[in-house]
């Protein structure tokens, strides 16, 4: 009996290790390659250098694309928060007819395939003659990230004890005061978390961007994607490493913020 259980445990541990390795290895290999000294993608690398990172900052276009991605991510995140937080509030606190349908509708961008959303937005933007490429990207990304904001903020709101809002109301607080002094402060961790996730999703987005971007507006992922069609530049490894680092930093911030909120 005893040995059977530990046998199972070893087997389970092995499976888990293999799965983790399978998930992590590509990122690790890329990270290792990015610190190599060769100008080709080779593994294992022949020596250590920051050469590839240097090339990223020196070569034409990479930095500009990165800035564009940053700008689009920031504006689309702000837009998604601006629309998504009030929507989440209405959906969780309100009771009006069609609430469920509206919730489903707000989540639809994750349920419809991204390609379909991308094509729809392409047609739509052409129809309304929205020609500014950066604006097109901002609007498109806001739509793509909105469901994540609504879901995260709704979960946060459902976590807030309604008795707190009622207590504030009975004490004489107007709706606006309750929102400002009670609901929003308690929701802040969720707002930060959803904003950071929206930022990451936008920063990483390829499919929709590919459809709606104009010729001059290449975000970082688009530029990476198109560059790989001509040559497999090892600079891509350096960029991937930086993007992975960014994701990790964001996830750590989210985890910290939520932990602090929970201990409050």
């Amino acid at each position, binding site marked *: 009996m005893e040995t059977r259980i530990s046998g199972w445990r070893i087997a389970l541990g092995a499976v888990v290790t293999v799965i983790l390795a399978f998930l992590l290895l590509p990122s690790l290999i890329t990270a290792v390659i990015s610190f190599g000294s060769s100008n080709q993608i080779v593994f294992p690398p022949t020596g250590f250098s920051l050469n590839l990172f240097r090339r990223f900052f020196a070569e034409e276009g990479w930095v500009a694309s990165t800035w564009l991605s940053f700008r689009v991510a920031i504006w689309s995140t702000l837009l998604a928060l601006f629309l998504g937080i009030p929507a989440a509030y209405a959906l969780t606190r309100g009771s009006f007819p069609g609430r469920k349908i509206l919730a489903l509708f707000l989540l639809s961008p994750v349920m419809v395939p991204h390609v379909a959303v991308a094509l729809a937005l392409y047609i739509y933007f052409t129809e309304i003659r929205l020609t500014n490429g950066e604006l097109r990207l901002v609007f498109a990304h806001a739509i793509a990230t909105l469901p994540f904001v609504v879901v995260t903020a709704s979960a946060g709101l459902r976590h807030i*004890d309604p*008795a*707190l809002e*009622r*207590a*504030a*109301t*009975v*004490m*004489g*607080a*107007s709706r606006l*005061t309750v929102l400002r*002094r*009670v609901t929003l*402060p*308690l929701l802040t961790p969720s707002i930060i978390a959803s904003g950071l996730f929206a930022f990451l999703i936008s920063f990483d987005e390829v499919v929709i961007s590919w459809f709606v971007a104009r010729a001059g507006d290449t975000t970082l992922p688009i530029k990476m994607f198109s560059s790989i069609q001509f040559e497999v530049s090892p600079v891509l490894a350096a960029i991937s490493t930086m993007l992975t680092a960014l994701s990790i930093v964001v996830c750590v911030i989210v985890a910290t913020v939520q932990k602090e909120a929970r201990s*409050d």
Partner: protein
Amino acid sequence: MTDSSGAKAAMIEISGLRKDYGSVVALHDTELSVPTGEFLTLLGPSGSGKTTLLNLIAGMASPTRGRIVINGRDVTEVPAEKRGLGMVFQNYALMPHMTVSENIAFPLEIRKVPRAEIRRRVAEVLDLVRLPHVGDRKPKELSGGQQQRISIARCIVYKPDLILMDEPLGALDKKLREQMQLEIRRIHKELGITMLYVTHDQEEALNMSDRIMLMNARRVEQIGTPDQLYFAPRTQFAADFIGASTLLDATVAETGEPALLRLSASESCRVRLHSAAPVGTVGKLLLRPEALRLVQNGQVTAGHNVLHGHLDNTLVTGATSKHFVTLDNGATLAIQELTDPSTTRLEPGLRVQVSWPPETGRFLEN
């Protein structure tokens, strides 16, 4: 608002108040008048409509019909934040992102009280609830009892005319609950604020209240002082819910002073009727354990009622003891007496009599 007779004006006047949720009645038509300064407890089992009534008064639900007047002002259509009431919740409802002081200052800030006065009044109420040193802590760093004191402090700091409390001690353990009952009573006495207190714990209601409003099945069952509810319950529900009680089947056999009740084919007893129940009225006889005496052969006081039975067992709980007796008609009842060494060692199965004076029994119609 004092009328010509000089009696205190009512803090709450409720007339024809009713709340429906679709086809569910959450509160049947209710009348209630609460004098200023009174401590009134809404007592009743879970689901009897206590919270519904409290929420209607607080303005957190709007009535299906009826009117609510608080301190002379009709507030039926007034939103909760403009009623100027205080409310204490079972789970304290302290703001987790604010310190204790900030929590207490919050209602004063809403009222735009100047900074210096806020600081003074926060310190004052922290003293009043006997927690002067916790101002800088977060609520979660306090025990449950302390948090509830802070939530009471947050309530009294803005001096509302009326404080509503919905099972405020429900989350505390028994010992702390008794301590907090005294604390709330003391605060009520010191400040003279009218309090409307909800509980399902009859002991708590008896301990604390000037008057008790007993609720059952979403309507008012009886309203009166703790004494009235205990000694003169008007219904079997009230008799059963408040205090320990034995209810025996009974039929009015003779009217008169006192009347005769038939309990079984061979047994009857005398009781003073408080309503004009004609001969043949069916109901129950209420007997309180502490009004009964355990008697061994031949010691019955003249004029007292006697029933025969045998002893099941005796429980000595300290200063008092409980005898459990099965009557010859099959009913069982409990007798509570001061512990007496001569009756604690009685053999189970012993033939005994139970006796009580006619004025302590109470006939309640079905």
